[in-house]
């Protein structure tokens, strides 16, 4: 059980009113709020240690380097990577996936297949479409089951789709649109048995549940700090060491080269090879502080809390007239979010009315246009929960929905 009073006190932003109502922040799948400890880590860095890293021998530079590399080790521990060098700092999930996709674009050939799924975020779909285009490879999608994705991906199809031509299998851990949880460990086992490289989009799982890359058995894992209490502008790509050192870097420049002359350059090994230029030092340190914060609270408890609130919301929303709820059924495992649509009221009107009640929701296609189209929807409303949300906030959500339905004459 989480101590919500204590946790809420850690987040300065929560204690404000919006349109005269207490803020009920239920847009956590888009980005999470930041605890005091993370904000303080940034301030401390800029007030005491700020300096460029790696190439410096003076006191500040050594402190900054230690803090930056310490953050890398901290993130490695957070996901149980075997080696800190397997953690590459990026701007976030999207950049992490682009780094892998660009590298594979350079080595895939016509005839090769990139496998992904129909429920991916644009950030784990468009980069692979581009990689396919650049290399001549083909892209295939694992379809989903059930009109509202109730049954997740079609696992029978998955087996049939994992043919010898498949070189990369990229899939989301938890869908940001449906809350569907993919069995990542099982997927990776299937792929590994066939020598297929796995890339997991962990944007929606990293902040909630314990992620152990060695137990999952993935080759790459991408995530964003801003979805796990860390600052914006920082995230990571985990890659297995043996693979990382074979990949060509995406960006080049200072800091990632061993030697340069006027004709060419030689790359350092990972992680430097993938971190051209001055890195986002302060926010990497902030990400380390976020790992500390989440592990102090305890990720199993957070995962349980977030999923329980989503369950509760799903249950309470499901009785509203004309509602269509995506993803797992009442009582079935789901990520900490619930996404729904009303027949006659558009998500944007819902979100605008909810905002008037202080309730922050997201409405739209959630960067998942193809899925929306397949579901016959243009948009949904999404409520997503995090460690500081309460059952009362679920009630505020439902009450706001009722008020809006009433205004639009839906009963």
């Amino acid at each position, binding site marked *: 059980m989480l101590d919500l009073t204590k946790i809420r006190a850690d987040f300065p932003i929560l204690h404000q009113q919006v349109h005269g109502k207490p803020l009920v922040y239920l847009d956590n799948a888009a980005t999470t709020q930041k605890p005091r400890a993370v904000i303080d880590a940034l301030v401390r860095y800029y007030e005491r240690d700020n300096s460029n890293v790696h190439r410096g021998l003076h006191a500040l530079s050594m402190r900054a380097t230690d803090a930056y590399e310490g953050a890398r080790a901290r993130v490695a521990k957070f996901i149980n990577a075997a080696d800190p060098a397997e953690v590459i700092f990026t701007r976030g999930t999207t950049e992490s996936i682009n780094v892998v996709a660009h590298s594979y674009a350079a080595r895939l050939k016509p005839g090769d297949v990139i496998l992904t799924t129909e429920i991916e975020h644009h950030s784990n779909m468009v980069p692979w479409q581009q990689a396919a285009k650049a290399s001549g490879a083909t892209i295939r999608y694992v379809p989903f089951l059930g009109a509202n994705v109730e049954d997740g991906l079609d696992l029978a199809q998955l087996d049939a789709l994992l043919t010898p031509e498949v070189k990369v299998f990229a899939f989301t851990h938890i869908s940001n649109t449906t809350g569907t949880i993919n069995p990542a460990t099982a997927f990776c086992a299937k792929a590994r048995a066939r020598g297929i490289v796995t890339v997991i989009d962990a944007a929606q799982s990293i902040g909630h549940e314990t992620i152990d890359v060695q137990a999952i058995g993935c080759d790459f894992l991408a995530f964003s700090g801003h979805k796990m209490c860390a600052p914006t502008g920082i995230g990571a790509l985990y890659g297995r060491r043996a693979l990382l050192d074979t990949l060509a870097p995406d960006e080049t420049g200072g800091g990632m080269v061993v030697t340069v002359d006027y004709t060419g350059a030689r790359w350092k090994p990972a992680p430097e090879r993938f971190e051209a230029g001055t890195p986002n030092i302060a926010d990497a340190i902030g990400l380390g502080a976020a790992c500390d914060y989440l592990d102090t609270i305890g990720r199993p408890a957070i995962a349980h809390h977030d999923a329980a609130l989503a369950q509760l919301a799903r249950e309470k929303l499901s009785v509203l007239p004309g509602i269509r709820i995506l993803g797992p059924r009442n009582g079935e495992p789901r990520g900490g979010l619930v996404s729904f649509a009303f027949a006659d009221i558009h998500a944007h009107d819902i979100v605008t009315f909810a905002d008037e009640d202080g309730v922050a929701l997201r409405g739209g296609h959630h960067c998942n246009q193809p899925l929306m189209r397949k579901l016959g929807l*243009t948009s949904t409303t999404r409520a997503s929960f995090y460690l500081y949300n309460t059952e009362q906030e679920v009630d505020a959500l439902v009450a706001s929905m009722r008020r809006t339905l009433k205004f639009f004459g839906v009963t």
Partner: protein
Amino acid sequence: MSADLTELYQQVILDHNKRPRNRGKLPTANRVAHGDNPTCGDQCSVYLRLETVLGQPDRIAEISFDGSGCAISQASASLMTTQVKGKTAPEVQALYKSFHEIVTTGNAPEEISDLAAFAGVHAFPARIKCATLGWHAAIEALKSDPLVTPTTTETHHD
């Protein structure tokens, strides 16, 4: 409900949203354009039959719209069709200019009282794109060749 919200969701808007005018494909159309609002996935297609006078495009003889979106975008497209029918392209442009003024400033000149229902949008800058989606599609349709071409109304400065 706050005054801003009541002002945004005026009766005339709710009415057009519930009972949209000129909705559906126009079989006789000789111009069409399609608009997307990528921020929210809203879509709007506008179909026109443009009259020709002495071989030159003249007035909008018939118009319809189709698509999906929020109450603001649907009502705006519906109301737009009632306002531009019978007008020439320059007249539609002029009217859009006034409409844009209304949704961005909240001030409606007296002579175009029908569109004044959208004055409340100005307090919700993120919704301006919703209110102008149908208009953008109509203007694109007026500019389009008699051949059907898809287009986007995503612009970054309104």
